[in-house]
């Protein structure tokens, strides 16, 4: 075959060009440390690395979100820690107030102390975070959660934070869950004297379900007892969880029930639904002491269903009762006793509730920490994946570089040698 001189040069040029292009690519790889100089080098890996980079940045973002959640939960936990101490203190004061030997002036002093506690509690309820947002007001971060009158003006929306791909964690709790709720699952009752009959010395305390086989094991029944005379009373029974098809609480009444003066236990009954209705025992009892009078009105409400539960109102009632003179009058004493009983029952439940909320905050913070650990693990995984897809194996590249260098030198040498073999160059005549 004839090898034209043109072809010889052409081939030499092409070979050297190809080798140089390969070298160039290697230089780019080594210079950037990237296996893929352009997506064309490995289209699949290029698109995979884009997706992994997104997962990586998401993972990073979730870590930042968790840090925000940790901060805001820590703020809340701080506030609730103070609230716990404050409620402990208030409960001590209430016990002190119950000591019989106190004068009106002593109680006035206690009232003043409780007013201070109430102000402190309002300040806690209106805690703000670093952004000036009120922590306990639900979605209405710009308005204080509670008014001075102790009315909640926030809403019931949680502030969810995306802590992980699939997990949203509430970064705070709404005020009504902290200050206006008995602890979840509480089966207790609170009793309250709504109206004191003239001259009544009746004191109601410690309602309890004595016999759980009588249909009120879940504390679903609420009672309102109205004395029509010292020996008769009407009772209004509210079933908060009526059997279907009823959806709203149902109310029954029994009238003219007989009260034996001097008895210490009042068994609460419900109606059998007949006409006229007959009383049926509910196994629920309430301690009663002293003598009721016509006009006495008591409520015995399950804590779970007490819509009016509000620690601010509890304190307000307490303060008002302590301020009223009661030293001389047995009836006033009885009224004070009733108010103190109510307050004790509500404070105990409110206190437990705050502890429950704090436990839930602790659980959330723990969960965040656990997710942080997983996040760190994932971060490593993503970095490793990206490294595998994108990073250059320097050993391999260096080897290739040497190889290419040799090839280029070889090609150049070969071209020179062949080219110099021309007869014209051999001093032909």
């Amino acid at each position: 075959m004839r090898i034209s001189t043109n072809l010889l040069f052409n081939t030499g040029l092409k070979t050297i060009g190809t080798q140089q292009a390969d070298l160039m690519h290697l230089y780019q790889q080594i210079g950037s440390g990237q296996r893929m100089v352009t997506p064309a080098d490995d289209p699949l890996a290029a698109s995979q690395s884009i997706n992994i980079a997104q997962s990586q940045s998401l993972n990073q973002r979730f870590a930042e979100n968790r840090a925000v959640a940790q901060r805001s939960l820590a703020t809340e936990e701080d506030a609730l820690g103070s609230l716990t101490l404050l409620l402990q203190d208030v409960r001590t004061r209430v016990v002190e107030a119950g000591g019989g030997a106190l004068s009106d002036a002593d109680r006035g002093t206690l009232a003043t102390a409780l007013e201070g506690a109430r102000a402190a509690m309002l300040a806690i309820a209106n805690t703000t975070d670093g952004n000036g947002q009120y922590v306990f007001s639900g979605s209405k971060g710009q308005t204080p959660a509670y008014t001075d009158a102790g009315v909640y003006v926030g809403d019931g929306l949680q502030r969810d934070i995306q802590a992980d791909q699939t997990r949203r964690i509430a970064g705070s709790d709404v005020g009504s869950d902290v200050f206006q709720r008995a602890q979840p699952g509480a089966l207790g009752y609170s009793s309250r004297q709504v109206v004191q009959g003239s001259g009544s010395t009746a004191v109601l305390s410690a309602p309890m379900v004595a016999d759980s086989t009588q249909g009120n094991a879940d504390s679903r029944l609420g009672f309102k007892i109205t004395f029509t005379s010292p020996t008769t009373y009407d009772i209004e029974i509210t079933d908060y969880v009526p059997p279907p098809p009823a959806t709203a609480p149902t109310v029954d009444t029994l009238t003219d029930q007989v009260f034996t003066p001097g008895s210490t236990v009042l068994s609460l009954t419900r109606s059998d639904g007949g006409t006229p209705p007959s009383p049926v025992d509910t196994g629920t009892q309430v301690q009663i002491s002293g003598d009721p009078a016509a006009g006495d009105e008591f409520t015995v409400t399950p804590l779970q269903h007490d819509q009016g539960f509000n620690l601010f109102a509890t304190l307000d009632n307490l303060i008002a009762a302590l301020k009223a003179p009661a030293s001389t009058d047995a009836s006033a004493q009885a009224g004070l006793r009733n108010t103190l009983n109510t307050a004790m029952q509500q404070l105990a439940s409110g206190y437990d509730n705050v502890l429950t909320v704090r436990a839930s905050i602790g659980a959330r913070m723990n969960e965040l920490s656990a997710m942080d650990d997983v996040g760190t693990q994932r971060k490593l995984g993503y970095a490793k994946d990206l490294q595998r897809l994108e990073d250059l194996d320097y050993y391999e590249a260096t080897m290739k570089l040497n190889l290419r260098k040799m090839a280029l030198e070889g090609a150049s040498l070969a071209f020179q040698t062949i080219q110099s073999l021309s007869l014209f160059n051999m001093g032909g005549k």
Partner: protein
Amino acid sequence: MNLANLGKAGLLVAQNRLQTAGHNINNSDTEGYNRQSVLSQTAGATATAGGWIGRGVLAVGVQRAYDNFLYTQLTQSQTKGAALATYGDQIGQINNLLADRTVGITPAIQAFFDGLQAVATAPADSAARQELLGRANSLASQVRSANAFLDEQRSNVNTQIRTTVTQVNSYLDRIQDLNRQISTAKAVSPGQPPNDLFDQRDQLVAELGQLVDVNVFEQDDRVNITVGNGQVVLGGDSVFHLDVRPSAADPSRLAVSYAIPDGAGGVTSVELKDSLITGGKLGGLLTFRREALDTVQNDLGRLATGLAMAINQVHRQGYDLTGVQGGDFFSLAGPKVIRGEGNVAGADPAVTITDANQLGTQDYQVSYDGASYTVTRVPAGTVAAAGNGTLSFDGIQVDFSGVTAPASGDGWLIQPTRDAAASLGVAISDPGRIAAAGGVDHDGDPATPEVGAGPANGDIALKLAALQTTKVLGNGAMSLNEAYAQIVNKVGVLTQQNTTAQKAQETLIQQNYSAQQAVSGVNLNEEYMNLNQYQEQFRAASRLIDVSSTLFDTLLSLRS
């Protein structure tokens, strides 16, 4: 005395040969040159009693070492090679644009959703809101700038098509000129081929082949040239220039057109379908535009559409800092409807995108046959929908009710996403207008409208942030980021395929070239040997004259 004549004939032939060898050596580097050699034969013999005495040598012509088959193979492979190289140059630019995933759209998407997460985490934080707006603007501008790059490339392709067609026309003129020169040369010296003119013409045809794929027919020493599926551009003694004009279907793209006689002495220009030109630089450009540029730009537009529609849809359900219901977050132009040239119909159909998730990346050609409309996917060619009134297909709704008096043959080109990326913008400028909060049922009555939750609520921002990983495109197959990754992958694959094909083609060209050169190329060593050989011949021939002279002198000296 014939010996001197013999010497003279030998000298002349040796001179011819030396001249031709010199010509070969001179042109060893001339592109398209075919090695020449002198054809010689004996000058016959004279009958004598002693037998036939030879009369020496006679040069009868000069021929070029040329094999039409090898030449055609070479030019054809070069035509294909030129198409691949042009395509590679073009797609290489997009490939480089997408090379670094740490700049451009990928980080912009990530930063945008990162900003959404920040707002979701601290909805009332005005700094987070401001930053989100900044990031949204940056994302929109990255998408726009990628699209602007593609637009620039489109106009670049248009310019190159125009230039290339001008070059093609110039080549056609020069080939026609050579056709004439060859005819003249043949007339001047019948029977002797004008080798150098042939070489020049072959070279021009080969160079034309690098611009556009042509078919060449030789007839009576003339070449006739056709392009596409048989459109004559050089035939007989006439050149029919190619032209460039805005495509009838889509005026934004330049199409090649050819001229045909209109029967009244003039010519009419007819658009040549892009798909008919596949070779040469022109073929590379057209293929790139059709195969890569259009689809990548549609893909990018689909990404922009998916982003804007998915975000807007959720954003509209939210409430801003002041409790006002959210509007659009991103602004986006609607689908582009291009009215067919010469449409009779009074108005254009109204096109809306109803579901970005179902969107494909095709364009659609609408045609009216006098009774009903047919929508065909471009370039797939499959029918998407047919009928009247309102047609829905692929997440698009086309309402023909506004079209008045359509005539058979009317058509429209619908480009649902082509310009979407260019129009992507952020519709809000006040950070307070970001509707991050969800709605609440304020009065317990589901019938009354909801009102916005407070500013610390980030329900909608959470939903918006979740769109980062939601499959909002390709019938639930791709998230936004994955859609972008798919674009990168597509460009990468196209580039890689092209590189591979180009390498294979280069090898083929090299093989064809060496086969052609084996026949036609000049080997200087060979010429060197030839020179020596012809020099020997020249010496020997002169020696004949010397001998003849000596003989003559001998005879003369007999008399003295």
